[in-house]
């Protein structure tokens, strides 16, 4: 016996199907009293919410108040209409990957990676590339059929492309972790534009990654693939290997 969910009209679920219940927390420049509470309520009302319950408020000083609220939305989403682009190559473990390339490609693949522009967060790209790897998956450096160069932090787009040309790379890996004011979009766009203007776009497989990157976003930005939070070396490695083996 299961609930009768209509996938064309899904709504938030509190404890009764389609109740639309959601939790909210926010500060308002309003007093911590009934007037402020009413302001919070009206805000949520304007968002189309009903059964609004301001569960809590607390004075933050300087004229601000924190509100916690629960309320119901009547909005629904058609799940069946949502198609997102995802990397869908099967995932191989390292040994499997090595063997796959032996058998299906027969050449080594050269990979250059960096955390570009203002961003100095190298832990993510290191997790993918370094020998040691991450969460029990070795990094690309250890793969028998990859030759890797990890350029580290705050590498300019120019430098990265230069290095890629120099070592005759097949793949460019870019990491972007800081996303404030959409700086990651700016940086990633800069790199791909530069590559295009230098006629290098099609010489490399361009792959980006970072906590706010999705495959969908990557494609939109003109990359070949994108990997978000919790991705592993095995994911990227598999994507790369299949790409080259199939192209061959």
């Amino acid at each position: 016996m299961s609930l009768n969910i209509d996938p064309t009209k899904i709504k938030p679920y509190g404890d009764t199907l389609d109740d639309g219940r959601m939790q909210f927390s926010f500060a308002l420049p309003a007093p911590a009293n009934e007037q402020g509470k009413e302001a919070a309520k009206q805000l949520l009302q304007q968002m189309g919410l009903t059964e609004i319950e301001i569960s809590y408020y607390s004075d933050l000083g300087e004229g601000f108040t924190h509100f916690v609220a629960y309320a119901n939305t009547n909005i629904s989403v058609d799940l069946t209409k949502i198609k997102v682009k995802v990397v869908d190559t099967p995932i191989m473990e390292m040994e499997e990957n090595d063997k796959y390339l032996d058998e299906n490609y027969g050449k080594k693949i050269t990979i250059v990676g960096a955390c570009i522009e203002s961003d100095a967060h190298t832990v993510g790209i290191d997790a993918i590339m370094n020998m040691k790897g991450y969460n029990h998956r070795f990094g690309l450096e250890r793969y028998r059929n990859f030759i890797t160069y990890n350029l580290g932090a705050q590498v300019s787009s120019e430098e990265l492309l230069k290095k890629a040309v120099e070592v005759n790379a097949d793949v460019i890996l870019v990491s972007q972790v800081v996303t404030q004011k959409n700086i990651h979009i700016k940086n990633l766009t800069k790199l791909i534009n530069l590559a295009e203007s230098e006629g290098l776009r099609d010489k490399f497989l361009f792959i980006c990654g970072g906590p706010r990157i999705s495959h969908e976003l990557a494609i939109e930005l003109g990359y070949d693939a994108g990997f978000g939070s919790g991705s592993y070396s095995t994911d990227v490695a598999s994507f790369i290997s299949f790409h080259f083996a199939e192209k061959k």
Partner: protein
Amino acid sequence: MIKLTIDQSKIDEARNYAKNIVDSLKWLLNDYSSDTIERTIVRLFGIDGAIDETPIPNLVVEHLKEKNVIDRGAAYWIANSMLATNLSAQEVAEEISNGKLDVTSLDAQPDKKIIKLIDELTEKMLNHIKAQKKFRENKFEEFGPRKKPSIYVIVATGNIYDDVVQAKSAAREGADIIAVIRSTAQSLLDYVPYGATTVGFGGTFATQENFKIMRQGLDEVGDELHRYISLTNYASGLCMPEIAVMGAIERLDVMLNDAMYGILFRDINMKRTLLDQYFSRMINAYAGIEIQTGEDNYLTTSDAIEKAYTVTASQLINEQFAYVSGIKKEKLGIGHAFEINPDITDSFSYEFAHALLTSRLFPDSPSKYMPPTKHATGNIFKVYIMNAMFNLVSQMTNQGVQLLGMMTEAIHTPHLVDRALAIENANYVFNTAKNFAQNFDLLPDSFINKRAETVLDEARLFLKKVSEQGLFESMSKGDFADIKRTEFGGKGVQGIFKKSENYFNPFMDRMKAELNLK
């Protein structure tokens, strides 16, 4: 090791007072029965169903009361009617319920035949219950024992089908025990509603069908997860033994069963409650069901520091009542709670001391530890960390069952998300601090040790007073939770009667024998 340094003789003394209190009530437990006990016997004959929302067991017992023959016990009358009419137990009951059969109008059948029939029927039902017990034991054998502290969460949507979804989700997140909270004040109903229900109020009705539906859901998800998921519900109220029997039949694994909750917090007559809990606990014991007591209730109305000793005293009384019914130490879930005002400096040390005292007093019993509720506010973030601290105390003081706190405690009965986060909270704290306590010795002259001793001393003196003046007298003076209850007041008082010479409760007799009770 974190161990209290407490004079064992003080513990023994307190326990002895509790034993005296309970022993002095043997007359009641031996010589009286109640409507719900008789309805339980009716149910144990396999009789079920309802007519116009009134359960058939109620109609049968009403009939016997009307005819003034209840003092012989329902068992006799049903068996006699079956023999006299050649109908099945269910048919007899239906005839009675439809007003077509007056049991007193039938000829008395030979005692030997009656006893033989009763023996057969008893055997059949008790075998089913034993099979359920065995099934549970096998599952634990197969999948391994429940972890400690066990993760206990409630579902309370009012709709048994929503409940099942939420329960299965919780099991996947790591819950060990699922409690289906009852619809508000079901404990005051002098019958058990019938069938599957979808409209409850602050909870879902405890019905046999609902038990069955949830049991099936949990068995499914448990097999998938390779973990046996326990199911629990409330026995307390005007139908303690009936619900206990339903739990035994449908393989509940744990039941909230407090000897005094009904008296104090639901104004149920004290004799009625004590009688009912006696038989209901015996059924729990027989079915291998773990019981849990409700000492947390004291602290929702009284101050948790000032009245900490009432929890301890109640635990010791509940323990003795449990033994009298044949409950084993390992199946005795002793209740207590984390309810101190979080603004109090060193409230964590107080909570720790109280929790440690419970572990010390009942080292072999799976204590049931209740979360912060009273001081929960709409600040879900604050409540979430209060729950983390509560989980830490539990892990460090080796509690048996952790009733997880919900960050929305002050707002609504738990949403799917609230429960999942609560389980994540417990899993994180239990794991990150798994062996943390093993690093330390508790100092004998520490605040915690002294605080535990103080609470024990207060409880000991309180129990002394109660044992001297008697439990009824103490309750009528408001010694428990400042609540006054009288021997002849309260709900359900009409539902008790003195058994006649030839009264007969075959199930209790069989259970007593098998449980080695005198």
